């Protein structure tokens, strides 16, 4: 199965992926604690970005409330650990189940009542806000005052309870990000992946080809929610403190979506590249603004906003398609019956910037795109 992911990928791309993997695996040997913590943020952002990308990049649904699943996963696993001593490796399952349950409700509402485009995005925000306000009042998880996990010293690490040092968390985050990439690469080639793409491109035409649009959308939503919930479990045990006003906040949802948008929505490597650009940028901004005494709240958000505007104006399909073009990560066309097994993450048409002018924006949110196209 894993071999299938790499079948047809050009040698050049394979070498680059392998080199990246080696560098990332060896990173803790050379990096200090601080740089390692930045790399953990990178991996986590790559993972959540990949999860969110399943929904918009594959199935064409914009969620602006993905913090909901992050928070749910975090709170459920933390509560089970603090109150009942159930470790995260077990509590990840109820956390996933809760995310799937809530996403089912959201999806049912949206698809039953044909809430599409920008209205779907608003619905996802509403769900996250309800959770934020709700968790403020749940005494069982500390309410607005926050929920804290018992901290152990690092040398008494318990991997089974996700207690450990930065190296441990780094490899865990790397594992998550790597698996998410493999999963998405497999899905992109699978039947369900093709259904998602068809629905994303044109729901009515997809229906005329025998595809159940609502079912396809629901499956993308559930998968994306479940993946994000797992990140929530990680987040709870990594940060050791949870506040509804932070973890369910819309700014957290925006953090999740920035990496794939900057890297390239709908591509496999976009979320990873975006995470590599964004997380270090955030750290640089914090120290730079701190150094010049500008550390007012919102400075980072302001700079991220400007950066995002520059990306959308300059490279609307993200940095990855451009970088893939520069690195010439494309295999030569072949007449093999399985010619689809080339890496679709590397758009073949994006040469010389041509496709960027023609490409529709991801941020055009009217419900049915197809009606206003050629």
């Amino acid at each position, binding site marked *: 199965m894993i071999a299938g992911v790499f079948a047809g990928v050009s040698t050049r791309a394979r070498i680059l992926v392998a080199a990246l993997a080696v560098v990332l695996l060896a990173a803790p040997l050379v990096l200090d604690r601080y740089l390692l913590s930045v790399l953990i943020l990178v991996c986590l952002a790559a993972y959540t970005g990949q999860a969110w990308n399943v929904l918009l990049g594959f199935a064409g649904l914009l969620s602006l409330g993905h913090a909901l699943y992050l928070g749910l996963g975090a709170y459920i696993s933390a509560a089970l650990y603090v109150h009942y001593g159930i470790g995260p490796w077990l509590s990840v399952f109820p956390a996933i189940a809760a995310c799937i349950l809530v996403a089912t409700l959201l999806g049912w509402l949206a698809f039953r009542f044909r809430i599409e485009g920008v209205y779907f995005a608003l619905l996802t925000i509403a769900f996250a806000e309800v959770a934020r306000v709700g968790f403020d009042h749940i005494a069982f998880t500390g309410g607005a005052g926050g929920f804290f996990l018992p901290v152990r010293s690092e040398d008494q690490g318990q991997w089974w309870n996700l207690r450990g040092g930065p190296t441990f968390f780094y490899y865990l985050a790397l594992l998550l990000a790597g698996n998410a990439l493999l999963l998405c690469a497999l899905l992109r080639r699978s039947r369900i992946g*093709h259904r998602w793409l068809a629905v994303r491109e044109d729901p009515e035409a997809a229906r*005329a080809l025998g595809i159940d649009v609502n079912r396809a959308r629901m499956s993308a939503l559930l998968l994306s929610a479940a993946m994000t919930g797992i990140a929530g479990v990680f987040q709870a045990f990594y940060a050791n403190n949870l506040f509804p006003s932070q973890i369910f906040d819309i700014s957290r949802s925006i953090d999740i979506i920035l990496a794939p948008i900057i890297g390239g929505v709908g591509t496999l490597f976009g979320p990873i590249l975006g995470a590599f650009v964004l997380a270090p940028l955030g750290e640089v901004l914090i120290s730079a603004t701190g150094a010049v005494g500008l550390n007012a709240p919102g400075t980072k958000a302001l700079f991220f906003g400007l950066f995002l505007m520059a990306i959308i104006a300059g490279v609307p399909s993200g940095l990855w398609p451009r970088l893939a073009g520069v690195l010439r990560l494309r295999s030569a066309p072949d007449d093999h019956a399985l010619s689809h097994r080339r890496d679709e993450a590397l758009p073949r048409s994006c040469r010389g910037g041509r496709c960027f002018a*023609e490409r529709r924006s991801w941020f055009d949110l009217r419900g049915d795109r197809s009606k206003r196209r*050629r």
Partner: protein
Amino acid sequence: MIGPNGAGKTTLFNLIAGVFATDAGTITFADERIDRASPEHICQLGVARTFQIVRPFPELTVIENAAIGGMLRAPDMDEAYARAGEILRRLDLWDKRARKAHELTLPDRKRLEVARALATRPNLLLLDEVMAGLRPTETDRILEILRTLNREEHITIVMIEHVMRAVMALATRVHVLHHGATIAEGTPAEVTRDPRVIESYLGAEDFA
């Protein structure tokens, strides 16, 4: 199906394909009532359609477009792509398989839409003005392809067409719609001689 603009030809297709629900009456396909069925179910039963305003999946490649149609009756994706390849070769799109659909010219996009519909292995193919806007040589090529499909794969084709040359060349029966009702039906030769058809649609030109 021929008839003036607004006669209800595309509406009829949308009713058959399940996009619109019927107000009255029934639609039956292969002994099954389909007037309450969803578009995806009707497609699964073996009815495929093209759209008057072409709508291939623009950001996907030509072969991906066709493979999405091929998925319907293929046990796995390799099979779906094999089916897609077979259809693309047939419709002269194989050389463009790695191009994105939105990069194609209009005739190619029309052909791609026919390919995508055919990839579902339909028994009934609904073609909504596939000849419109094509040059005569392109029309001839599509006519040839459709004739082969009809003869060799036994696919029934219902087409809405304004290009009378295509209608005369391909159709065995012609229905003329006007204001939502059939005003004439028969062989192309019979229909083009019908005075009501000449008055409401064809004009005084000689098509026979």
